[in-house]
């Protein structure tokens, strides 16, 4: 199984998320994560889909996605020419004896504490999925009470824009 990051420009229309998600479901494609939001162009949304696949079916995935009328453009973002980031909020158990260790981990991972109460903290961290996983591992011994993660969002390096050619 190999992981691929697909970036989709789609028309911002009702049901588009269903169309994309349902396509993955009915064709048996495996979604690792999916993030969607608006873009610099009005009426156009961008989805970042991380799929778990092998070489041959990836072509099927992009071809099938391209058949969706509301999909404007698809590119695969390769590791070495793009950056991908996950965003994570995590609530960790702390007390007087552990708090400083947790805060040290926060500093090491360049994370931020955004809420503190007597027996827990909420931490925000941004990074690629490996960093997020490593951070979780470090926090686990203290007791993770709650964890929420965005899907990855990704963008290509350099000055080129994905939407340049599609949207005149």
């Amino acid at each position, binding site marked *: 199984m190999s992981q691929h990051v697909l970036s989709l420009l789609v*028309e911002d229309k009702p049901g588009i998320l*269903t169309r994309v998600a349902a396509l993955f479901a009915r064709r048996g494609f495996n979604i690792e994560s999916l993030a969607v939001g608006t873009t610099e162009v009005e009426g156009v949304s961008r989805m970042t889909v991380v799929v778990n696949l092998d070489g041959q079916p990836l072509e099927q995935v992009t071809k099938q996605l391209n058949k969706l*009328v509301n999909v404007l453009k698809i590119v695969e973002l390769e590791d070495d020419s793009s950056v991908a980031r996950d965003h994570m909020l995590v609530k960790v158990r702390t007390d007087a004896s552990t708090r400083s260790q947790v805060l040290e981990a926060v500093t090491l991972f360049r994370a931020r504490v955004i809420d503190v109460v007597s027996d827990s903290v909420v931490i925000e961290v941004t990074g690629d999925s490996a960093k997020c996983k490593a951070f979780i591992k470090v926090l686990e011994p203290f007791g993770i009470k709650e964890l929420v993660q965005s899907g990855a969002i990704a963008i290509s390096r350099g000055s080129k824009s994905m939407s340049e050619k599609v949207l005149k």
Partner: protein
Amino acid sequence: MTETLSGAQAIIRSLELLGVDTVFGLPGGAILPTYDPLMDSSKIRHILVRHEQGAGHAAEGYAAASGRLGVCIATSGPGATNLVTAIADAHMDSVPMLAITGQVNSHAIGTDAFQEADIVGITMPITKHSFLVTKAEDIPAVMASAIEIATTGRPGPVLVDVAKDAQNAKFEFSWPPTKEMTPGYKPVTDPHGKQVQAAAELILQSKKPILYVGGGVIRAGAHKELHKLAKLIGAPVTTTLMARGAYPDSDPQHLGMPGMHGTVPAVTGLQKADLLITLGARFDDRVTGDVKTFAKGAKVIHVDIDPAEIGKIRHADVPIVGDAKVVIAMLTQELEKQLKGKKYDISEWWSYLIGLKERYPLGYNDLDDGKLAPQYVIERIGQLSGPEAIYAAGVGQHQMWSAQFINYENPNTWLNSGGAGTMGYAVPAAMGAKVAMPEKLVWAIDGDGCFQMTNQELATCTINQIPIKVAIINNSSLGMVRQWQTLFYNKRYSNTDLHTGTDTQMVPDFVKLSDAYGCLAIRVEKVEEVDAAIKLAMETNDRPVVIDFIVGRDAMVWPMVPAGVSNDAVQYARDAAPIWDGEE
């Protein structure tokens, strides 16, 4: 110039302006506003069906027989869900179809209102695209876009679901619509020249090529181009179930239909070929059998307008995305150029194939119980009606025999539910075909099981003077299922007996039923009655005709490749595999 119209009036006006002349439908609450201006349209003929599924299949039959768009209309909720089977069918078989449904008022959507169903959601996986319209002013652009999507590229069904308040609201209508509804829709029709060149080179290198022709050739109207290509290279031709009629059966280069019930020469020709020239076909499991062992020694040229079909099942050595009509013409031209008048010689390949054709022709036996052989009935219908007639079949044994024992010479004369396998397709599809091509003789060749699913449309045919001919191949059972029970379930006939034969309770009596629907109804039980009944049906054009052919139930469809098995294991008849020479 603008004009104040209601959304409903705009739907009708847009259809008229887009050249729609016929719609099949059935009104109800949420589509009522649209039925009012429809009554005044002098350009659009509305045919009131008895069940929305009938409207859907009629639209398919209309489209498949004429090559034009088929249109059906239904109300919200159950009206719309009754279209679902036909929409799925059109999606599988790439039929250009527009389905218009009423939807509850936009402010009531999502409240579980009376007759509310999320038909856009329900049909998402079985439409090429769908629209939910909640504003009247979007209607012209949506209608234009829907029809463009349905009829261009790989054709397919498009659903337009219109909220009732959008039908009632007034707005300033102007034509043509300026708003672009679907900027992401850009089908590729012209192939890469280099790919065509590579395909021609591969063909001329091959010694055992075969043309594997699918329904895309018919949808693209590429039969003439195909004929020219086939004649230039002299290669054998196979036409899939969806492509029957794309190449004349009378032509000696034609090996017949491939697949589960294909001819031995077609099945084996594909297996032994060194090159598949695949034109508008999609390597369906009913054609390939076990994919891993399908045409193992062959390279593949794959021409399709849908890029997603290429490489989906089988790797293509030369993939070509484009319209079959354009690609085949270019390929022929390129081959002429590369041949430079030389002859492309594949005579050794042909001597093998001719041997197969001689040894394994299609055939059938008389039945032990003395009942009519269903194949004989179907063969006579084809012989007496000729290749100009249109034949629509249901699904099952009678469908396979109709594909095998009727000679097709022209495209769009064989209509059936290939991909979805929808029982009940025949009667409404024949009705739609007859409406599209009123001068043509149109047969529905149906089974006793299929017929009971949609025969209510006989009322539509009688009332609207649509004189189709229906041949019920009545073996008093769900014949294909029964055949599998005979072969694979130790003759344990679980729930396949329909009790419609003359030696059963005969429920229903098809002659009485058809008579009640205003049809000329005839029962045929003996060989000597067959021709007279068919001729009488052909002469009767003041009402539909139904012939109840009582046939033997033990007849089976041969040849056969059992499901999931290699095509090398094709059986010519029960327990009779072809005998291969030497190491073959």
